Structures are given as C-alpha cells and as structure tokens.
C-alpha cells in the first residue's frame, strides 16, 4: 500500500484516532502523543503493529518511540516504502 505523503499521513491519523478511540483534535491543533492521555504504552504497541499491518512494513525497534505524531509516522512509513 502506498500513496502521497498527505494520504499516508491521513491514513495514519485515522488509524491512530480509531485505536485510541478519541475524537480528532480541534481545528489547527496537531495530534501529539504527549497531548493524548489515552496514547499510553499499550496503545502505542497497538498503533505500531496496526501501522505495520496497514502499510505492509516493519519498523526498526529504534523507531518505535519516534512514532508519536501522524507526521512522524508518515515520514517513517515513506522511508520504508521508498524503493
């Protein structure tokens, strides 16, 4: 699965919100792990595994803590999808 950077970011954002079970942040506010109490370590595990399944990739262990916003996730996904 691939897409434009903005499409990947939108998919990642939608998946993160669905797993967290929270509404999207209000207009103009970014979705940041540090701002969402529900985004704890267990939800982070679910998010990382779901992203791997959605995009058919495997993150490196060192990337796990950096996947803390849809923007960062999209950048990491693009790196793994790059030919």
């Amino acid at each position, binding site marked *: 699965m691939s897409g434009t950077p903005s499409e990947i970011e939108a998919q990642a954002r939608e998946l993160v919100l669905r797993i967290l079970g929270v509404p999207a942040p209000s207009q103009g506010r970014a979705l940041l792990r540090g701002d969402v109490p529900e985004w704890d370590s267990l939800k982070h*595990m679910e998010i990382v*595994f779901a992203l791997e*399944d959605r995009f058919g990739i*495997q993150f*490196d262990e060192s990337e796990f803590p950096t996947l803390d916003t849809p923007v960062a996730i999209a950048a990491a996904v693009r790196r793994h999808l790059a030919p």
Partner: protein
Amino acid sequence: MLFGAPNRADLAACVPAWPLRALRVRVHRNHGFEAVSSATRAYAAWNGLDFEWLIGGYDDSLSFDVASDADIEIVWLDTTRLQGLAEVGIVDWLIGRLRALRSQTVRPILVLAWPLSDSDRTRLDEAMIPDTHVAAVSTLAAALGERWIDARAAALSGTRLGNHACLMIARELACCWVPALTLPPRKAIAVDLDGTLYAGTLGEDGPTGVELTQGHRALQHRLARFRDEGMLLALVSRNERDDVEELFARRDDFPLRLSDFSAIEVSWNDKPAAIGRVASALRIGCDSIVFVDDNPGELADAGASLPVITVHAGYDAAQTASVLEHVAGVFRWRRSAEDRLRADDLRASHVRAQIEQAASSPDDYLRSLQVQLDLLVGPRQQLARLAELSAKTNQFNLSLGRMSEAEIARRLVVAPSNVVAIRLTDRLSDSGIVGMVVGSRVGNALHIDELCVSCRALGRRLEDSMVTKAVVVMAGQLAPETVVFAVRKGPRNAPARDWLVRYAGAPVDDETESVEVPFDAVCARTLSSAIRIEVMQ
C-alpha cells in the same frame, strides 16, 4: 476481514452494532498478554461476546490471586522464563500450580503455554485436573513459522511473540477456546447446496455440470470431519428432491454423501420454515444450528426469524470452512463417545418410532427394544460428558444448574454417591451417557440439585425408572425422609417441569424453586420390568 491473513489495522475498523454478552476473563501470566487481549475485541464481538480482562502482574511463580470473581481463568506462560525449574521439571511444577488454582476456583481454566512439546501437553492433559484445558499453541506456531517470534516485539508488548502470533492466538481464544468453556456447543450445521457445497446451479447445470472447486472440496471434507466428530449435518436447499438424489448418486468425487445428512429439507418453500423442521427432526433448538448459505437474503431471513447462527458461503469455500470453525460453540475441547454416536442414534430413533406404533403396550415396546440402563455411581471418568450434559440439555433439565466439570468433581469428592450417571443402550443403538443426577444430603432430606436427561433418551418412557433408581441408589443405607427436587423455569425446560408435576403429584408454577416428595413415595414407584437396570459402583 476477520478470517483472512491477520491484520490488526482491519480489526481496529470492526465496531459491533449488536448487543454483546460480557465475560470476565482473568489472566495469570509471566509475559505480556496485552498484544493478545487488545486484538480479541473484534473476534469476540463477532461471536456476540465482550471480554472484560482482569490481567495480573508478571509472576513467574504463579501465586494466583483469585480474590475477585471471574468467568474463566487463563494461565499465560512463556516457559523459557521458567528454566530455573528445569531440575524439578516444568510440567510437574505446572501440574502442581494448576491443582492449586483448581482448589481455589470452580471456573474453567485455560492454559496457554509456549513453548510446550506435544508430549508435555499430553502429560498436562493426563493429570486430569477437572475443567482444565491446555491449548495447542504450538500448532499455531508451526503454521506461522519464523514470524511467530519477533525480537523487536518485547520492547513494545512484553512478549517475544510477534504481532501476527498474538493475532492468531486472539482469534482462537475469542472464537474457539473461550466459547467452548463458557457457551453451549452447536449441535448441527445446516448447509445449502447451490453455490455453497459446489459452484453452479443444480437445476441449470445438472448433476455433472456443477463444479467441485478445490475450495468446495475442502469445505465438504471439513463438513465430513465435523460429522465424524459428532456434529449433525442437515441439507436445506431449494431444489427438486429427485435432482438432489441424482446429484449425490452421480458425483463420486463429492466427499459428502447424501447419507451423511441426518435431516434433508429439499423444497421450494421458505428456508426458515425448513430449518425449523430440521431442528424438530434433530430434536434440538434452532440456536444450536449453524446455517450456511451463499445467498445473503436467505441468511438474513433465517437470522431475522430464528435464533440460528448464519455463515455466508463466500466465493472462497475454503475460507467458509475456516469461518465455520470459528463460530462460537463449534470448537470443542473434547469429543465424547456420545458425540460420535449421535447420528447413528438419531437414525435408530426413526426405527423406534415404527416399533412403538406396532407395539401392543408400553412394556411390550420397551421389551422389544431390550432397553438397558446402567447407573454409574461416582463416575469420575465421565466428568467431561456430565458437564457437557449439564451445559447442553435444555428440555429435560430440571434446575438448569449448568454445573461445571470442576463443580461436579467437587461433589464427587464430598461423596461419590452424590453423582449418578445414566448410560442407555438398546438393541438398535448405544446412546452412551444420557442422564445425570447430582444430589446432596441435608439432614433428613436428599436434595436433587441437578437432574438432566439428554433429548436423545426422551420419548422412550424411561425418565421415571432412571430417576427413581438413581434416587434410591443415592439414598443408600440411610433412607431420607424426603427427596427435594430443585426446579427452575427456563425457556425450554417445560418437559422436565411437566414430568415433575406428574412424578411428584404436586403443582409446579413459574416461581416454584423446589418440590418435596416423601422418600417412601419414591420407593413405592414400580420400576418397569421391561427395562434391565444395573448399578455400577
């Protein structure tokens, strides 16, 4: 989505819009379980369940905290973390810990331990700890191969098992292992023909024109195995009966034969009515039936008017087989001898009906059948079958106590004569264990806490003899003054309650919780001389 390749992103999109039954599941563990529990939601919801997880802290010693109530106990072990026990032997240690847990709860225990060799798993099973079941996790590991372990995973999930390993375990847990411990089993699978057991339409393509694809062959093979394991098969099809008979006669390549079906409903009438007739013929409730059809409209009609479980036969028939295996209540931890006897016994019931019509009297009927009842007192070897009877029997189940294997085992420990199993044979078939009476002595009264007789044994006028003899055996040398039958109204146990009215000569209304019968009155009942009864201590 649920039964293809495991995909956690897809699972996240599944949100049930139907009511769910809550189950409290406690987990005793020594490695991360959350990667499994978080993935069970969609699978459990598909089967109408909602798990409430009570997950304890990491504990290699398995000290077991069961302070709060739970419906089921799971032991989740990474045995490589127990290498310090190598000298004692991990299996011996685990048997000891499971016995300790068993002594603290009567709830079912499910052991998910990995790695665990087949021989170690067998040893755990052979320890015969009541209502304790060891899942074949290694089979899943073998199916997934090298992706079973993911060295990266522990940093996120606290377990070495990879994401897809956890997803596979979650699916089996939610669809097979836990439902088999907590829900009544399904008893029959009713299948459509066209587009379900083969590709094509019998009426248009003819018996030799319909195609048995590789997937349909796999589905038919799986259905044949279900039948061998004791699941009843039924055919529900809109076709001409002659065409269907010709189809099975000419298609030697079909793994299923027409004789594999215990009920056949082929007509142009509506399918819900046909399924209702199947349920009557098989003497089971519609909620015990799984209905498989390729037509979503037929499934919707059946699902709207009957409490059947419906499964859509999709384009990939092999996946239909996989879906069937994951319907709650289809997987069983054990298949009893009675399961395998069921289809033959049902066939014999049709012959019995003919004999009854020709018989000059009830005793003549019983004598011609050469009926024998064996009363097994304190039947430790039959615990699984007795628990199954308690869980499955709906019509002749007086108190609907739904006793678990562990609870029946506990009653046996108090006094072996507290439990009597009843085995039935006649010249036409061996019906196996068909009845159970569980009692307890309270002062001068003998309380009958659980009394159930399988529907397979009903209609032969045997209930009075079964119960009278069982009560007398239970009473032993010290005759009680009264026998107190526990009774509770359920949606389908009118036959049992009506029997009690007749047997006790006392009214039983919706609120009645017990009925007393003087023990002398029980003893005074005449046992039919046409029935041979043997008591086995």
